[in-house]
């Protein structure tokens, strides 16, 4: 394997290499010939993420040193995620001053490492986590790590750094697609630069092995960058299998940790330095195998189950072992033949983990009773019995509950099962689960409130490590999608503040695959049933290749080094590419890095520091950087989308230890991290950073406050747009990068965002659930019980240091018509936050505005004026005191439909649900708060949208307002707009200039 891998890598290198360093490459290429060991080593090391060892380094030692020595390159490289660095290297050809030079010098290395770079990213990512706290240090550390610690990836080290590693892996996976694209772009550029050299590209292939269910091995050559789907399709073709959606390919990190190969992503990036050895397995066990269309499919399922049984994964009683064994015999040997089947014919087969003479006798006895069954019938009988086993199709994961008790979590078609020892102690059917998430090594599910309970509860489990948590999470997401949805759900888009993994199941659902198999129109394919003898002996779930751990280790070790080297080289890389990458995909994380680069020219190093902060808090604006304002506006999420992505904005009423982390909406979580970052920043006294985080924080308060208010469903949508050319991009980039880091740690999934119709009705657990679901869609978060207090929307707008100036806040309140009185007049209160510029440090002031309370925490110099135009009785003037340097003018205009009675406050209804959704694009932040209340028998849904548009004078605020209102109407045609509050804050100086 090693050799093979190496050759592949080399191939890639060649194709990718730009030119400048070709000379160096060429020698390597020459060595590429399969036989050459040197080439192997080098290539393998480079090619594989972690496994590129010394050779690469050697080739370009001087270059590395150079980079390190040169301050600029360092600075840039620091900020760049490792993979970005690689990209940079590609881009070097483009116009980059110093970095270029360096890059050119090192291009060879870089290029070589490019292929590796992706893989190498993993390591850098490791450091990313740490970076969150201290980015600079972390980045620097990354480098060091790369160069120094190729070994980290190795299993032995994993314990200590599991989290990091996991994160890395995840990142890789998620970003693979994007990266690819980026790369392509880059190559194009490269071509331009080095046309002559580039021309002929060879497609290099890697040989991979797949262990099949019958114990045989399938080998094929794959293009090195092939996605999982390619291999999977090949295998299925080889097996003549059409109903393939129930199956998947596994790769093992070690004998215990198996991972499903994501077919939508590049194989190489998933397996990293592992050998290209896979195991073909059943991934989704059909609850009713008789509904499978083809016998051949059932046959493979049988093979899988036989493995499961023999390995002990699927426990059976003695009788069942015997019965299933007898069907196996019938299927493979046919009718019992006393002459042919001597007394011991059975002992060649294995039916159970602990097979006894008695069992074999029983099997033989039962075998005789199956006379006349065809193999297919015997298989069917086998499955009919196996499917009733309680552990059929249950994927078990070790975990501990909140009290540290060892338990097992079992994922199956119906939901999540909790076992303690062998006893089932709880069960959460999919319809009961509102959200699945993980953070670090914790896995959380948020479940519907039980009857008579008002609040959802979040239950946390501790998994052995981060990777295990992510793996469990992914399995849950996949099972839920496959068994409960009619069609897979689109991965979340970056623009909606989603943190964490974007992973979604991308294959067909059971419903879809059933539909598809109905169309299968071919004569039943002939296939040979291989004897269980073979299977039983060797197989035990662990792939053969894996057994050779030393091999794996070597790979990883080498890869690690190589990666490190590459990273260093990459620093100078191109930025244009980054930009392009940004457009390509929704998978924001990859894009991020690119964005940053784009900005680099404008952004000072200080700025960079700011990035770290962003990284932490939000995924805001990952996308759309290239887009125009108009585009951005268009992008505003439909409410449904918002809901989907954001059921989490509101904090739980009383979070406990676990919940604190988990329950809090993404935004909140983000906040937490951002806070951390902020602290760090302060400590370091780093100067600039635009802070969007504040918004998030505020949101929390807002959510609560609004709920308290009274209305049923209130949606607040905030859009914060920053027009600062420099600041904007940087922000976005930083945010994206942050999302990356977050990816590793966090993943969330809401089983119920989907429209009700999408869920397969037949499979619903109970009617109650269904009924609730309708609510659920809108109501994912019960925030707080209305206390009758006045609603106080709080808005925080933060101004970036450089010049943010214009801010428009548009609040659109939409109400169902039947609720005439629900609108609060209090809503009008808006908070303004001024950003302070202090010695280059921008501090943001979070102001929570209670109805009449204004807190200004920062040194005041800003003049704020608030003009309120409305009939609302309760209008509080908020005057902010001084904030240095920035002078601001604030106007608040409220349009309210006359019919509304502002005194709804006192009128307390029963809060049914409340939800806050937040989405952000570059220039706008939209917060949607939906509250549902029952008041005097009338159900009232109130949606309040808060849109914050931030930007300079270029923005047509009127248009934006009109647009916002229009959208609100479109999104809720059956609702009426009851109130519009426009709050305008302008920096005086700026205005003057304008």
């Amino acid at each position, binding site marked *: 394997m090693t050799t093979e891998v190496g050759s592949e890598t080399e191939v890639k290198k060649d194709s990718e290499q730009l030119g400048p360093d070709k000379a160096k490459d060429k020698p390597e290429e020459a060595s590429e010939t399969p036989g050459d060991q040197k080439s192997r080593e080098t290539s393998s090391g480079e090619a594989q993420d972690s496994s590129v060892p010394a050779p690469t380094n050697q080739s370009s030692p001087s270059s590395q040193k150079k980079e390190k020595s040169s301050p600029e390159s360092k600075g840039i490289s620091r900020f760049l995620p490792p993979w970005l660095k690689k990209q940079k290297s590609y881009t070097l050809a483009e116009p980059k001053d110093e970095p270029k030079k360096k890059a050119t010098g090192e291009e060879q290395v870089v290029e070589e490492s490019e292929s590796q770079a992706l893989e190498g990213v993993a390591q850098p990512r490791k450091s990313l986590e740490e970076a969150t706290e201290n980015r600079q240090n972390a980045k620097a550390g990354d480098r060091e790590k790369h160069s120094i610690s190729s070994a980290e990836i190795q299993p032995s080290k994993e314990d200590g750094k599991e989290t990091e590693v996991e994160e890395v892996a995840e990142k890789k996976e998620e970003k693979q697609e994007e990266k690819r694209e980026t790369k392509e772009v880059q190559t194009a550029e490269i071509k331009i630069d080095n046309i002559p050299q580039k021309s002929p590209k060879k497609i290099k292939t890697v040989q991979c092995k797949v262990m099949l269910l019958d114990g045989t091995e399938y080998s094929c050559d794959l293009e090195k960058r092939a996605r999982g789907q390619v291999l999977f399709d090949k295998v299925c073709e080889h097996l003549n299998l059409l109903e393939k959606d129930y199956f998947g390919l596994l790769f093992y990190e070690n004998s215990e940790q198996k991972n499903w190969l994501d077919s939508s992503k590049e194989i190489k990036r998933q397996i990293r330095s592992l050998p290209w050895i896979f195991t073909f397995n059943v991934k989704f066990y059909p609850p009713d195998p008789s509904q499978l269309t083809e016998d051949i499919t059932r046959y493979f399922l049988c093979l899988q189950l036989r493995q499961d049984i023999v390995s002990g994964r699927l426990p*059976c009683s003695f009788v069942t072992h015997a*019965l299933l064994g007898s069907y196996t015999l019938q299927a493979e040997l046919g009718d019992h033949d006393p002459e042919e089947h001597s007394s011991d014919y059975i002992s060649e087969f294995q039916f159970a983990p602990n097979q006894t003479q008695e069992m074999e006798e029983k099997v033989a006895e039962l075998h005789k*009773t199956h006379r006349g069954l065809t193999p297919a019938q015997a298989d069917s009988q086998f499955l009919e019995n196996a499917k009733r086993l*309680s552990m059929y199709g249950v994927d078990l994961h070790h975990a501990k509950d909140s009290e540290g008790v060892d338990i097992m979590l079992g994922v199956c078609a119906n939901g999540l099962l909790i076992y303690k020892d062998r006893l089932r102690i*709880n*069960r959460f059917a999919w319809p009961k689960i509102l959200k699945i998430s993980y953070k670090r090594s914790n896995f959380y599910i948020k479940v519907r409130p039980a009857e008579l309970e008002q609040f959802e509860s979040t239950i946390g489990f501790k998994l052995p490590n981060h990777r295990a948590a992510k793996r469990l999470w992914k399995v849950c997401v996949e099972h839920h999608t496959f068994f409960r949805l009619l069609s897979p759900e689109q991965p979340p888009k970056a623009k909606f503040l989603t943190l964490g993994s974007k992973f979604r199941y991308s294959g067909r659902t059971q419903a879809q695959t059933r539909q598809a198999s109905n169309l299968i129109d071919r004569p039943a394919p002939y296939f040979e049933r291989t004897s269980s003898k073979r299977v039983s002996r060797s197989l035990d779930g662990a792939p053969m290749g894996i057994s050779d751990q030393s091999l794996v280790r070597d790979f990883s070790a080498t890869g690690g080094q190589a990666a490190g080297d590459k990273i260093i080289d990459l620093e100078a890389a191109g930025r244009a590419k980054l930009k392009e990458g940004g457009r390509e995909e929704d998978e924001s994380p990859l894009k991020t890095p690119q964005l940053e680069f784009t900005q680099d020219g404008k952004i000072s190093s200080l700025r960079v520091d700011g990035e770290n902060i962003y990284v932490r808090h939000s995924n805001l604006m990952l996308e759309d950087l290239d887009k125009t304002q108009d585009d951005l506006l268009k992008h505003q999420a439909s409410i449904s989308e918002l809901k989907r992505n954001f059921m989490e904005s509101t904090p739980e009423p009383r979070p406990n230890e676990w919940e604190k982390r988990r329950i809090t909406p993404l935004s909140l979580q983000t906040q937490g991290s951002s806070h951390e970052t902020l602290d760090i920043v302060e400590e370091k006294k780093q100067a600039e950073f635009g802070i969007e985080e504040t918004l998030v924080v505020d949101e929390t308060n807002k959510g609560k406050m609004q709920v308290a208010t009274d209305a049923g469903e209130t949606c607040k949508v905030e859009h914060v747009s920053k027009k600062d050319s420099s600041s904007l991009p940087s922000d976005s980039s930083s945010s994206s990068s942050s999302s990356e880091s977050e990816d590793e740690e966090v993943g969330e999934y809401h089983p119920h965002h989907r429209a009700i119709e999408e869920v397969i009705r037949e499979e619903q657990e109970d009617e109650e659930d269904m009924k609730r679901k309708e609510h659920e869609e809108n109501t994912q978060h019960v925030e707080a019980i209305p206390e009758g207090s006045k609603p106080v929307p709080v808005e925080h707008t933060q101004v970036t240091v450089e010049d943010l100036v214009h801010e428009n806040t548009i609040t659109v309140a939409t109400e169902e018509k039947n609720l005439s009185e629900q609108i609060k007049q209090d809503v009008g209160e808006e908070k303004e936050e001024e950003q302070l510029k202090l010695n280059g440090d921008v501090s943001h002031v979070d102001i929570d505005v209670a109805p009449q309370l204004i807190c200004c925490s920062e040194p005041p110099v800003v003049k704020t004026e608030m003009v309120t135009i409305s009939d609302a009785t309760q209008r509080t003037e908020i005057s902010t005191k001084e904030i240095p340097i920035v002078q601001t003018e604030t106007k608040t205009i409220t349009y309210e439909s006359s019919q509304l009675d502002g005194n709804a406050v006192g009128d307390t209804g029963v809060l049914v649900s409340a939800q806050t959704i937040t989405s952000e694009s570059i220039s706008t932040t939209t917060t949607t708060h939906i509250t549902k209340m029952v008041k005097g028998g009338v159900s009232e849904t109130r949606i309040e949208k808060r849109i914050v548009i931030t930007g300079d004078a270029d923005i047509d605020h009127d248009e934006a307002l009109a647009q916002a209102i229009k959208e609100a109407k479109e999104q809720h045609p059956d609702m009426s707009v009851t109130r519009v509050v426009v709050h305008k804050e302008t920096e005086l100086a700026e205005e003057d200039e304008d």
Partner: protein
Amino acid sequence: MAGLGGGLAAFGRCTHAVVRALPESLCRQALRSVAGPEVDLARAEREHQLYVGVLRGKLGLQVLELPADESLPDCVFVEDVAVVCEETALLTRPGAPSRRKEVEAMKRVLESLNLNIVEMVDENATLDGGDVLFTGREFFVGLSKRTNQRGAEILADTFKDYAVSTVPVHDSLHLKSFCSMAGPNLIAIGSSEAAQKALKTMQQMSDHRYDKLTVPDDAAANCIYLNIPSKGHVLLHRAPEEYPESAKVFEKLKDHMLIPIANTELEKVDGSLTCCSVFINKASEL
């Protein structure tokens, strides 16, 4: 072959029943959760004979009747000492130390039926059969004063094919003090808060959807469902004289052959209908 119990169609099938005569010591020495009137032994015996008569005569089961043991006042309640599912029998370790010896006689008779016998030898484990509800698809084990987690684990190890879920039982002696199976996929459940709560727990834990038959009286929710080839669905339930309102509920079961049986005397010592028998389905006997 009826693998895995043959699914729902085979639920309630049985060929044999094990019962045990009541000792005279029962009247005064039998364990009871609530002090109350003394058991009328003569009447208790009459009721028990009627019970056995129904199984043997009316339903045609082979009834194996163990002799009473005066040193074991609770020995009539055979259900607690053995859990039989398909061809495997788990001999329990009853939660009440005074009852542990009841197992011996049961062991002998089950061995005679050629069942796979599993004994609960772990001294930390306790399990009363009255806490074990087998639905045909899975087991629910009540965690009560008589049954602990370890006992449930051993049961789970014994019947590996089935999910075994635990249900807390607080206010009554056994899980089956307020529920039982009244048909395939049909759980009879009492109306008390504790019973309803337990039902909720079971519903939550199960992958299957059970129908429920709610009866006003918890004690009446303990009934015996059998699937007798020549009779179809058979349900032994408490007599209308005892629980008239609950009896009316049972009478709505159109597909069942209903057999009211009085159990007034044994009820005084926490006895219910299911307590007095262990049912076995010997496929080979067919």
